[in-house]
């Protein structure tokens, strides 16, 4: 039997983390959780998830900074990143410019408030 793929869910809202985690577990994924960007980076380095569902607006280290850290690290850059963003109207592509002028390369994004079923479809597509 193949090993379950590990997904890291990162959001500063524990309720959202829980709701997403439950959906992923029902789809037979393994789930790790983090509640801000710094904790996320620790978990990413430690557990090497296949995909990270990453909130943008978080304390200490935001999602854009986490995204940069992952995509600029040769050991981590293959990790798939799906951004959860409430500012989706500023996202032209997944490589986009945010308000302080940085460009960040994510693999996909979904606008908040999120459609959980649509998020699961995105995860399944990337994890095939």
């Amino acid at each position, binding site marked *: 039997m193949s090993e379950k793929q590990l997904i890291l869910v990162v959001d500063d809202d524990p309720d*959202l*983390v*829980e709701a997403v985690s439950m959906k992923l577990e029902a789809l037979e994924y393994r789930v790790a959780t983090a*509640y801000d960007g710094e904790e996320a980076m620790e978990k990413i380095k430690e557990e090497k998830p296949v995909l990270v569902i990453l909130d943008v607006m978080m304390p200490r280290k935001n999602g854009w900074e986490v995204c940069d850290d992952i995509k600029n690290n040769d050991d981590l850059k293959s990790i798939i990143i799906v951004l959860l963003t409430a500012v989706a109207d500023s996202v032209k592509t997944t490589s986009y410019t945010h*308000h302080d002028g940085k460009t960040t390369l994510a693999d996909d994004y979904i606008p908040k*408030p999120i459609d959980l079923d649509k998020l699961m479809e995105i995860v399944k597509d990337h994890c095939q």
Partner: protein
Amino acid sequence: MDPIKINGIRLNKNYVQVTQAYIAGQDQSCVPLYQVLASNKINMVSMTLGAIDNSKVFVSGTIASKHFQQVSSPDESWNYHRDVCTISIYPHHYRLQPLGFFLYLLGSQKISFQNLIFSNAMLTFVVDQTDCDTVIDILSKNFDLPPSHVPFEQEENVEQTKFLKRRYPETRATYMEKRIKTYGITLVSDLNLCSYLFSFDQLAEYGHLIQSMQDKEDKFFYISAYMATLGQTHLFLLTGKSISIPARQTCTAELLSFHGPHFGDRHSIISRALNCLSQKFIPVLQTGCTGASIAIVLPEGYGQEAKTALKDVFEIP
């Protein structure tokens, strides 16, 4: 016994706890707290409502101090408890063990609380702000936290928040939709609602009893509690099986629960839900809302009717 694993503790300060008690259907002049706040466009970060002894209604809401000052006409039936904070542990996974252990810790350390409420992930206690350091210390020593856990008190990035509120009001969900988005409404039937009333001195004992039910009972479906006058604790526990702790009152019940984006940040949502049920004459036994979650406990047989009624107000995917 191994320490109970949790992922984090969250502390939020500077709230006022407002409580209100009235007789349903009799106190015509008494407007429910949630309706007054909704008309003032003021949000409660959490609220519980309980019908006690079939007629008395008790409402307890947690409001940010800065917002409470904006209430234009506080009702004389309200009681205030200023300078409180909320302390949450997460996730609870609806297990009785962390719930009972939290109650036990507070009781054994003689720390009272104003309110207990739960969301999809969090068990939240409202306590005096003067006790917050003590409670945080007790929790961090007695629960098993991951070394990477986030700080207990989150610092708000004021500039970022201002920018987002100005440009993207939906990011803090201050808007109000005609029909409020949810992730779906779940109805669970064949549940048992147990009501307990005990003195503050017995809190540790009850906490220990609930904790010890972990092996016998699979999980809780709803929990709320508050301290009434004279140090009396009211506790309401909804489980799938009848539980072994003798209760003051028990009844069969159904649970409607739903989650949505930032319910805890937005005014009027619980008011719209309860008004909708009231207009259809659907009785409510208990209600709790905080974070992104709302839970409504109904007498047996009302669940489907209530779910249908709520579709007028809430969008169900």
